[in-house]
Each structure stands twice: as structure tokens, then as C-alpha cells.
């Protein structure tokens, strides 16, 4: 692999989700040199795994398509996938960065024809569907993958699958001798856009995510609704594959809880309101959604969407945080126990499927960021004292896609200010 040329006027963007792509593109379109590194084999991050956006219910493919178009047309951005930052040292305007680049085992010759995937037999849990189904060890992450190249999973190396894949490739794209390598860079500013991950739902013991197959997370539900997802867009119960028509959504699953995540994750109320519309889309008036909530946080223009959902007769609201879930052993149905706040009625409601509106935590927590930074009590990046490492998007706090894009644009501007200054210092 050719080492990219980088100087103190280069901006490093860490993370290739919607925030990282936005920050990289905004800076690059201002004429700055940008290196965009992504840990996984593809850009797009969690945005690419959404079925629809709120509040307009449009498909993320649209927004990603525009960004990928901008990226392909811009010579100032160098994209490195399967690359992780292992070390950052230096000061404002001048950082030495070490990247650790993992082998993809498939080079630029790949045309994404898919013959290698047909040739291999071993399957692994598909992380792009949150492990809801399996994928081959030679795979294309998803339909929106960029770069549009297959990947050979490291577990295939040294097995018959690797040789079978190489034999099946007509373009000499498979290189089994690729090695992990370290890359050293000098950059002027770093935009940290490592995004978020869902809170581990199994830790919320009373909800039984680890014990009851029909308790799933909102992200898994998102994949289920997607035509490219594990169920081909059908809302099916994991226990028996039956259609789930009576679905409960539990808000603040992990969020606003001193025992789990102390912050409000901000997106989950709107995500559940949106997902009730997937139920309506699937079954019309036959579907039933129930939202259990402490309070609904749909601010500004989202209020309109909330009102619309409130007026939907298939959706009902219970003002209560569910205390615990019990499973009926035979049917796999779930009984939600709690007491509501509007009259203090004790309830035991039965549902087919329970969707936990799971909270967000930073994908890379503050202490794990290999640089001197200040993080808040939840591990979100706040600032780098005196430095030029800037948080963008969900690395700095829980944000929806729209606000992540705004935040990333602001981060790009701050990084541009730093590299402009080092440019003028060098010139004088």
C-alpha cells in the first residue's frame, strides 16, 4: 500500500460514518488535504444500516449516495478503510499519528462480481445485520459499501476457503499475502468522528434481552424492516418466525439511568415514533404499536411528527417505564409489568415482540482515545486542551443524522482554521 503524503496542513478524519464523511468532504471542498480513516471495510457507518430517517421517512441511501458522489469527485480526500489510529502525539497544528491498517486480502482489481462469495462455504455472524443472520467469509458489507470491493474475513486465511476464493476470482484480485501494516502520518488537525454503539441490552437485566428471543433492540428492528435485511423487510418474531403484529416499544432502555447510561440518548423517542410507522406500513390497521415512555422528547419540528403518530389509531402510549418483562414459555409472548403514571394503574400487558429503544454510548470512549482529550462522564469527547483534536457527530454526544452533519461541518471549520494558521506560519 502506498503511504499517503501528509503534512501539517493535512486534516485527519477518524471514522467514516455520516459525520466523518461530512467533515472530510466539507474540508476537502474548501481545498484542504484530508485523510479519512475507517476501522471497518466500508464507509457509511450506522447510517447505512438504517431503513428510514425521521421525520420525513426517506431512505438513507439517498443521503449516502450524494456524499459518495461528492467523495468520488474530490481528489483532496484519501480514504483508508480497515485502518485504526493507534497513537497520536504532538501539539496543536502538528501531530504524529500512527495508523494500524488491517489486510483486506482483496485488492483494487475487484469488480464486486461476487464469485469469491459463491466459492467459499464458511459463514460468520453478519455484523451489518447485528448478527441476526450469517454471511459468507468472503463478503460485500452491504449494498451501499464504499469502496465497492469484497472483503475476505481473516478467519478464512489458511483454510480451503481462501484458496477456493482465489481460484474463483477471474481478476486476480485476491492477495492472500497481504499483511497488517503500520502507517506514520503528520497532520495539523484531527477530527474525531468515531460515532456511537448501542448500549449492551443484556445488561438491563429485568428486560431479559439475553433470555427472551422476542426482546430485540431498536437497531435490530431497523434491520428487520429493511428489504435488504435478514427477514427481507418482514417484521418477524425471532422465536418462531411468526409475524409480529402487537409490538411494544420501551423507551429509555439504558438511557437516563444511573445504573446504565446517565445521559439522554436523544434519538430513541423519534426512532420509536418512526418505527411505529413501519408497523403501520407492514400491516395497515391490523398492526398495533404501544410506546412505553417516561416522557417523549420530540423537540422543534419533530413535534409535528409526534402529533401525527399520536393521531394514528394503531399507536397507543403508556406513560410508564416498564419494570420487568416475563416470557410465556410456550408461546414466546411477553408480559410487560409496571405501574403507569397517569392514575397509578398496575398493568400486565401481553405483546408479540418487544423493541428496546436502546441508548447510545460512544463507540470509542474517552479513556480509549489515544490522545490527550477531555471526555464527559459518559465518555463523549468534549475537547482537547490547547490542541486541535475536534469531536464530530456522535463521538461528542448523542445526535441524530441531521445534527451529526451540522456538528461535523462545524468541526471541519475548526480544523480548517488550524491548518490555515500553520500554512501562513510556514509561508512567512
Amino acid at each position, binding site marked *: 500500500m502506498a503511504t499517503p503524503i501528509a503534512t501539517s496542513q493535512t486534516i485527519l478524519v477518524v471514522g467514516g460514518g455520516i459525520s466523518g464523511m461530512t467533515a472530510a468532504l466539507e474540508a476537502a471542498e474548501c481545498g484542504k488535504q484530508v485523510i479519512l480513516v475507517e476501522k471497518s471495510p466500508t464507509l457509511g457507518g450506522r447510517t447505512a444500516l438504517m431503513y428510514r430517517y425521521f421525520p420525513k421517512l426517506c431512505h438513507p441511501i439517498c443521503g449516502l449516495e450524494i456524499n459518495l458522489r461528492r467523495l468520488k469527485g474530490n481528489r483532496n480526500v484519501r480514504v483508508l478503510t480497515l485502518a485504526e489510529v493507534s497513537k497520536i502525539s504532538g501539539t496543536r497544528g502538528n501531530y504524529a499519528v500512527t495508523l494500524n491498517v488491517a489486510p483486506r486480502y482483496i485488492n483494487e482489481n475487484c469488480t464486486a462480481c461476487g464469485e469469491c462469495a459463491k466459492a467459499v462455504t464458511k459463514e460468520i455472524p453478519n455484523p451489518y445485520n447485528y448478527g441476526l443472520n450469517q454471511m459468507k467469509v468472503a463478503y460485500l458489507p452491504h449494498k451501499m459499501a464504499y469502496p465497492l470491493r469484497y472483503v475476505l474475513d481473516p478467519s478464512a486465511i489458511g483454510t480451503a476457503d481462501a484458496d477456493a476464493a482465489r481460484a474463483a476470482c477471474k481478476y486476480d484480485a485476491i492477495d492472500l499475502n497481504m499483511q497488517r501494516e503500520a502507517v506514520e502520518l503528520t497532520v495539523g488537525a484531527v477530527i474525531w468522528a468515531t460515532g456511537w454503539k448501542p448500549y449492551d441490552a443484556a445488561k438491563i437485566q*429485568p428486560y431479559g434481552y439475553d433470555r427472551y428471543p422476542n426482546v430485540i433492540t431498536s437497531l435490530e428492528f431497523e434491520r428487520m424492516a429493511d428489504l435488504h435485511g435478514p427477514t427481507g423487510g418482514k417484521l418477524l418474531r425471532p422465536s418462531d418466525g411468526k409475524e409480529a403484529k402487537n409490538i411494544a416499544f420501551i423507551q*429509555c432502555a439504558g438511557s*437516563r*439511568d*444511573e*445504573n*446504565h447510561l446517565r445521559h439522554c440518548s436523544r434519538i430513541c423517542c423519534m426512532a420509536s415514533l418512526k418505527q411505529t410507522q413501519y408497523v403501520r406500513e407492514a400491516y395497515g390497521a391490523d398492526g398495533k404499536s404501544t410506546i412505553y415512555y*417516561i416522557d417523549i422528547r420530540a423537540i422543534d419540528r419533530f413535534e409535528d411528527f409526534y402529533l401525527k403518530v399520536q393521531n394514528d389509531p394503531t399507536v397507543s402510549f403508556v406513560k*410508564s*417505564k*416498564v*419494570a*420487568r418483562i416475563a416470557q410465556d414459555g410456550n408461546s414466546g409472548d411477553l408480559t410487560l*409489568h*409496571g*405501574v*403507569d*403514571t397517569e392514575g*397509578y394503574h*398496575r398493568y400486565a400487558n401481553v405483546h408479540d415482540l418487544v423493541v428496546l429503544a436502546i441508548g447510545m454510548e460512544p463507540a470509542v470512549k474517552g479513556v480509549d482515545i489515544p490522545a490527550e482529550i477531555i471526555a464527559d462522564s459518559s465518555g463523549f469527547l468534549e475537547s482537547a486542551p490547547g490542541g486541535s483534536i475536534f469531536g464530530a457527530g456522535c463521538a461528542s454526544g448523542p445526535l441524530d443524522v441531521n445534527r451529526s452533519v451540522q456538528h461535523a461541518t462545524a468541526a471541519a471549520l475548526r480544523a480548517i482554521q488550524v491548518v490555515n494558521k500553520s500554512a501562513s506560519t510556514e509561508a512567512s
Partner: protein
Amino acid sequence: MSELNTSTTEKYHNNFLREVEENVEEGEWVKMCMQCGVCSGSCPLGAHWAHPPQELFMMIRAGKREAVLSSDSMWMCTSCYNCVVRCPRKLPITGIMHGLASYANKLGMAPKIQPTRDFSLQFWKNCTRTGRVNELRLTLGLYFNDGLMAGIKKGWAMRNIGLGLLKAGRLNPFELFKGHSCKDQQGIQAMLKKAAEIEARRKHSTH
């Protein structure tokens, strides 16, 4: 109405939340409740409470002084701490329940016939008198709580257990008359008095 009750009513007028904050053990936490309902739903005895914790907290904020202090709900708490470990805001709910019960008792507003209260009072009297719990007197005291005949009936029903304990040397009938005590009874009384003083001062210094 007790004198203490009259004076506190005058002092706090309609601000019952402030009264609770300043006088009830852990009462300063009440305002932190966000009414999610997890405590009420997690309570194993919740269905038997007239007002679950979440509702009590809202009643306190709404100034329902009479209803809260004369309620027997907080006396139902068995200190299982399920609500405390589940509370998203980490309120010491068990402590608040006992604080409310104790405060209601102090003001003379607690329900007159309440088994938990009866037992607590008997136990306290029993163990603080000599510094040792006199199990025989405590048990008999509870048997005869509901009258002479009820006590005899209960005693008769339990006779075999009593005889068994006697044979095993776990029950001394002479405890009924004098009973054993700790070596320094005056010391125990002085310690309890000091503890009450410290408690009064602690609550006093918070406001």
C-alpha cells in the same frame, strides 16, 4: 392533633415537600423522582400498597400531607431494596419509606392499627430496656396483641414448637420474669440518648 404536629403545620403551611426534606430521613431525595414508575412496578408487595412509592412522592409534592402521613403504604415496605437497585435516579427509596413511617409515628399521625408499627414499637421497647432482646416476652407480647383469648389460642397452636425449643435448651421460661441483660445497662441508655441527640442535630443542621 399532637403539639408537634400543630407546630410543624404552622411552620410549613402548605409546603409539605419542604417539611419532608427537612424532617424525614433521606427526604431531600423526594424532589429527584422523575415519575418513571420502576419502583412501583419492581416492588414484590406493590399490589398490596394503597399508594406505591412513586405515587407517595407525587403526593408529597402535591402537598397531600394528611393522606401521606396517615397512609399505611410506607409501613408495607419489607426492605428488599429491589426499588433502590432499579431506580434510574438512585433514590434511596427504602430509606425514604422508613423515614416517612418514622416521621408519621413521631407526629402521632401513623395508622393506629398497623402490624409493622406495633411490632417495631414492641421490639424497640423490648431491646432498649435491658440492651438485650428478650425473645420470650417479645413473642408473647405479639401473641397477646389482639387480646387475651387470641393470645391463648395462638400460644396453644404453637405449643409444640415451644416445647421443642425448651427441650433443645433454646428457650428459658425464667426469661419471662426478669430476663438477661447486658453488663452496662446505663451505658446503653446513655448511648441511645446520645444517638438521639446527634440525629436531632443532624436534621437541624440541614436547614
